[in-house]
Every structure is written in C-alpha cells, then in structure tokens.
C-alpha cells in the first residue's frame, strides 16, 4: 500500500500538469455545486500566480489583489465599455496586469523583506483608490456591472456560457494553459535562477545572475497569471466587485499558499480549494468565518508550516527514503 502511494505521488510529480488536469476534469463532480468549483479554479490559479513570487522566489507580496483586480476590471471594461469579445477581454486583462506588475514590481524590488511587503501593499492600495474613484469606468463602490458573456464562439462550435458546468470547462482550458506555462517556467533554467535567488541572493549575484532583472521578470509573470485569474473571474461573475482590489484579497493569496504549501506546484491549488470549501461550509453555520480562518491559519503556521501538500510530500519522501522505493 505504501509503495503504491509512493509510486502514485512520484508519477503525479513527474507529470504534474497532466495530473492537475485529470483531477480538475472530474473536480466539479466532487463539489456540492458548480459555482464553487469555478471559484476554486479561479482562485487556485490566483494562488499559483502568487506562489511563483512568494514560494519560488521568496518575495512576500501583500498587494497581489492589485493584479487580480486590474485583470478583472480591464477585462470587464473591455466588454462593458468597448463591447469587445470575450477573448479580447481576457487578453486585455492579462496585458494590463502585466503592465501593472512591471510598474509596481519596478518600484517594489528595490526593497527586501518586510519593506517589500509594505511597498506592495501601499501601491496596491493606490490602485484600489484609483479604481474606486474612477466611477465612470469602474462603477466605483457598486462594482462594474454588466460584464455579460452569454456564449463562447469558436470556429465550428458555440458554447453556452451561462451553464455553470460549461463555464467551468471553458475556464479550465485557460487554467490548464496557464498551469502548463508555469510548469514550463519552473522547470526551465530561469526556474532554477529564481529558486537560487530565494535561497541566497548574494550567491546568485556572485554566480553572475542579474538579481533585480530576474525578480522583475518573475514579478511580471506572477502578475500576469493573477491577472488571467482576474479576467476569468470577471467573465464568471459578470460583475467586477470593488473587493477584488481590497487588501483582504491580497491576504487571501498568502493564506491559500501557506495553507496548501508554498513553493510546491500543487500546494496553492490545494490551499485555494480547502480555503474556499471551508468558507462555504462555515459561512452556512456561523457569521464568524474570519474567526475560523484565524484559527486554521494559526494551526498551520504553528504545526504545519509546510502546508497540506508540503507536509504530505515531506511524509512521502520520508517513506521513500526508508523503503528505498522508486526515486
């Protein structure tokens, strides 16, 4: 049995994108309702984007809501004000969050540690107020309404985007593409560079790597992934709530990552799923969801700092060493 579990996880790790895809294909049937599955898919991607920066490069941003929000708003504005098709909206959303990532990243990477976190938080707050005040474009406090996409037209097929299960699979196509991209990047030489920067910036520079440029690039990639999550969310909800840019949303990315296991490929997704599922269950029982979050968060930070997936992997690796099982 142990050997079987070990083999399973070894295989899952070797083919991580395929594993994720297989699981996500059946995922809606494990969840109580489809809207929750879609939510988990979108926030899973958001956490994956955040993890690229936090888990793999070691930079803790407290402002990633900015990229989720910018992606959402710009996708929404493309549909509502410009009347552009869904695919253009997604492209605009991702491009805009990459630009936002370049600007915020350019300023933030000059600092380290807690200062980096504070600068990202402050800049994200500026973004929040800009969108809050630009009522004509964004709907201000009420959010941007009317991001109506009723069907997805592709050459040859037309998909009804109102049906929640269809919606899930359309969004999954984009999420799968993004996961493939992230997996490629992590496995590339550049993936090794960002990990080395996380481990020791001084040594990475002494090895000849331009730390600032590498950090900026990973910041933009991370922002782009989060922006894609945001754009998909705008299409999913058909409105863009102003909360998308709120710092609580930034905190959620940190929480999901820690819960699932930072610096692991599947961790952020697991974290997002557990977080949103718990939220769904707990809010049905009590109003004090944030209290429950606090307790869960503390338990993990104190007893399982590697998160759910990280702890699991750690255990499997121990078994592997002990049994000398498949490497």
């Amino acid at each position, binding site marked *: 049995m142990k050997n079987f579990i070990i083999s399973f996880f070894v295989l899952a790790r070797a083919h991580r994108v395929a594993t994720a895809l297989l699981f996500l294909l059946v995922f809606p049937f494990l969840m109580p309702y489809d809207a929750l599955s879609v939510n988990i898919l979108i926030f899973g991607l958001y956490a994956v984007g955040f993890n690229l920066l936090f888990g793999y490069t070691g930079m803790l941003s407290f402002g990633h809501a900015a990229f989720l929000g910018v992606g959402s708003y710009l996708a929404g504005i493309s549909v509502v004000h410009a009347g552009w098709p869904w695919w253009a909206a997604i492209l605009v959303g991702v491009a805009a969050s990459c630009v936002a990532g370049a600007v915020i990243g350019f300023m933030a990477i000059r600092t380290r540690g807690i200062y980096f976190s504070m600068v990202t938080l402050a800049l994200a707050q500026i973004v929040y107020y800009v969108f809050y005040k630009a009522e004509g474009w964004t709907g201000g406090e009420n959010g941007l309404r009317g991001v109506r996409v009723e069907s997805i037209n592709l050459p040859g097929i037309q998909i009804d985007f109102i049906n929640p299960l269809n919606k899930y699979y359309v969004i999954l196509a984009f999420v799968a593409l993004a996961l493939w991209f992230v997996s490629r990047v992590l496995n590339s030489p550049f993936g090794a560079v960002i990990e080395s920067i996380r481990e020791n910036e001084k040594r990475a520079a*002494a090895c000849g790597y331009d730390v600032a440029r590498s950090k900026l690039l990973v910041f933009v990639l991370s922002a782009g992934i989060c922006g894609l999550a945001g754009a998909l969310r705008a299409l999913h909800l058909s409105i863009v709530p102003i909360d998308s840019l709120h710092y609580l949303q930034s905190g959620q990315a940190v929480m999901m990552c820690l819960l699932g296991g930072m610096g692991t490929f599947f961790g952020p997704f697991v974290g997002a799923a557990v977080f949103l599922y718990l939220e769904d269950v707990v809010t049905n029982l009590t109003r004090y969801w944030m209290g429950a979050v606090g307790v869960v968060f503390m338990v993990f930070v104190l007893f399982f700092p590697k998160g759910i997936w990280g702890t699991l992997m750690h255990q499997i690796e121990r078994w592997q060493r002990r049994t000398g099982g498949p490497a």
Partner: protein
Amino acid sequence: MNTPPILEARNVSRFFGKFKALNNVSVSFRAGELTAIIGPNGAGKSTFFNVISGGVPPSEGQVLFQGRDITGIAPHDFARIGIAKSFQITNVFKQLSALENVRVALQMRVSRFQLLRPRQAYEELLHQAGALLSRVGLTASRDKLAGDLAHGQQRSLEVAMALACDPKLLLMDEPTAGMSPEETTVMMDLIRQLAAERTVILVEHKMKMVMGLCKRLIVLHHGELLVDGNPDEIRANAEVKRVYLGQG
C-alpha cells in the same frame, strides 16, 4: 612587462560615514600569483575584499581588471568578466542539493533568461557539475542538501560554485574561517592546487596559515597599506610585529 596587472587597485578609499575603513590603498596583482591580504581585526581586509569583488563600490579611487576600469560595475558582472569569490560567511543555496548548487552556478554560462526550454536540455552541465564536485572532494555528498553538509563541506561547495564560471581571478575571504584543523589542511591543499592554474587572492586573519602558502603578503592596518612583501620580509618587518604579531 607590457601586460597589465590582472587586478589593480588605484588609490582606493572607502568611507562609512566619517569612518575611513580603507584609506588610499594602491596595490596591483600579477597574473598567476597567489597573494594573501592580512592584517589584525579592523584593518580593512574585508572592506578591501568587498571593493575588489563587487560587494561595495569604493568611495574614491579605481579598480582595474586586466587594464579595464571595473569600478562600480554590478555584482553579477564580476562572474561574467571572470572574477569569482567565496564569502567569509558561507553563501550556498541551502535547500538545493550540492549538485544542483554547482549546476545553477554553471548554468550562468549558457542560460540566464531561458524560460521555456527544460533544464534537462543542458545535460552537459550535470557532468561538469559532477566534475567540479569531485575536484573539491564532495562526490559522495552530491545529492545531499547543501544545508545538511558539514561547515567545511559547505565552504568547499562554495569554492566549486566559484570555479563554475571558470574565473581568471579567484577571490577568497577567509577560506578556512570556522574550520577544524583537518578541514583547514584539506582547504589549503585545494587552494594550492587552484593557485597553480589561476590567480588567487586570499583575505586571511590567521597569519601562520598564509605564511607557508603564499609568496606575497600584503599587510593592511587601520585601512592603510602597511607592508607588501614576501613572507620573510613580512616576518622581519618591525612594523608588522608591532601591529600584528605583538597582539597575540
């Protein structure tokens, strides 16, 4: 002597606020030499090391590498032009395996911003990394996490990483700091071998250690150059005795 010195510091000073850590130091190093920079605590050795290795730019003066002015170039440019270093406080990638540490260091030569090719496409790097590890005697520990290695092994690993860019000039800041006597002997043998094939500059606190190792010693004191000479000259120098040997 038409070839310029491999490294030259011209009237280099470094201030920290009002404190002059280095004051108008001029030294040049010839290619192929093994030189040690020594001095009592607070002599400015580490500041000098940082200035010539890209840790901090000098406040005044110039640093030239093979006749080219490299004052104030970015830290990552040092490895690219052929200057590698090992730090006084060990800097390795602790959560990565020893082999991966060296592989990442080697990778700089072929790829820095390649996002979409898999790492495995650069297979030759793994062989080279293995060879470098065996060079510093870490073959048996190649799959261990760098953070799990003994202190001396981590320092050897750092040397392997420094060698990865095939430097013309290797700078080492107290390479035997914190090492056991056995580890020190191993490291000194390694330094001797490395010095046979490239220029090496050491910064060292322990004078005894470098006496038998280097042909040229440079003594710093209070941020200034005190003496520059061979071990016999240094041993015979009254000034050196006063500031350095007299202490212990």
